[in-house]
């Protein structure tokens, strides 16, 4: 495939027969939602692990204080 035919294919691909703005907005939104889901799930898990670690430290400290 020559460079010129590749550019022609690419332009047609983006244009999508005149429906490009509708199609790419739909795909862009989907990509955004996937990204949000991945990042929010990871953030939620990381913060849960951090809180769990803090609880463990607090529990260990209170047990140490209770010892005579």
């Amino acid at each position, binding site marked *: 495939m020559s460079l010129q035919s590749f550019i022609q294919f690419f332009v047609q691909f983006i244009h999508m027969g*005149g429906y490009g703005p509708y199609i790419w907005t739909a795909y862009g939104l*989907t990509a955004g939602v996937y990204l949000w889901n991945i990042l929010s*799930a990871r953030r939620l898990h990381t913060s849960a692990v951090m809180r*769990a670690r803090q609880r463990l430290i607090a529990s260990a400290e209170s047990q140490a204080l209770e010892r005579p």
Partner: protein
Amino acid sequence: MATWVWFHKLASPPHIYRIAGRLTLLFTVPGVLALIVGLYGGLVTAPADYQQGDSFRIIYVHAPAAWLSLLCYTAMAIAAAVGLVWRMKVAHAFAAATAPIGASFALVCLVSGSLWGRPMWGTWWVWDARLTSQLVLFFLYLGYMALRHSFDDLSRADRASGVLAVIGLVNVPIIHYSVYWWSTLHQGSTVLRAGGPSMPPSMLVPLLLCFFAYTCCYGALVCVRLRAEVLNRERSPNWLSLNA
């Protein structure tokens, strides 16, 4: 007997935390691969529709999102019912982990459908039975999450939101059968229909791959969220020290 042992094991937070961790990768790899191949097939190799032209390619993000929004709600309601009947906290945690994922894909379904409707129907929105019942589903998700956040006490939040999830399940068959029960502008089922799918294999295979990919991605996402929910609920330091 063995079934009940398996069921009781699912109620154990350390067990479910461990299983969810293993399943995350198991869902992610095939999900990402199927998504790449499915979207490539849908955008590049599938021919343009003879009536709708290239605009039909929105189906590769729209239909799997619709499927996932229904799957998520059904899973959420079943988990909530299990949580209410057997007082299983892990089941409520699963329902809570599913809700944001389902809501986000219900939104994708509504917006992508609207983006397809504008060039095909000449309008962004109609108060058609399928569209309206899907919008109700989106609001049910929002209501479920809002209700959970309105309680400080987690067990009361679980019960109240669980009841809403179970009642809202009635909307799922309404969405699916709305195109048959009422005269709707929305087309009938393309894949799940009597007499087989109405698409040629070159269009159908990428669509089926996208359905599979979305389902796997839901599996991976819910596992990560479930682990966080389980950790937030667990107060026993012994097993936390092993996993956190």
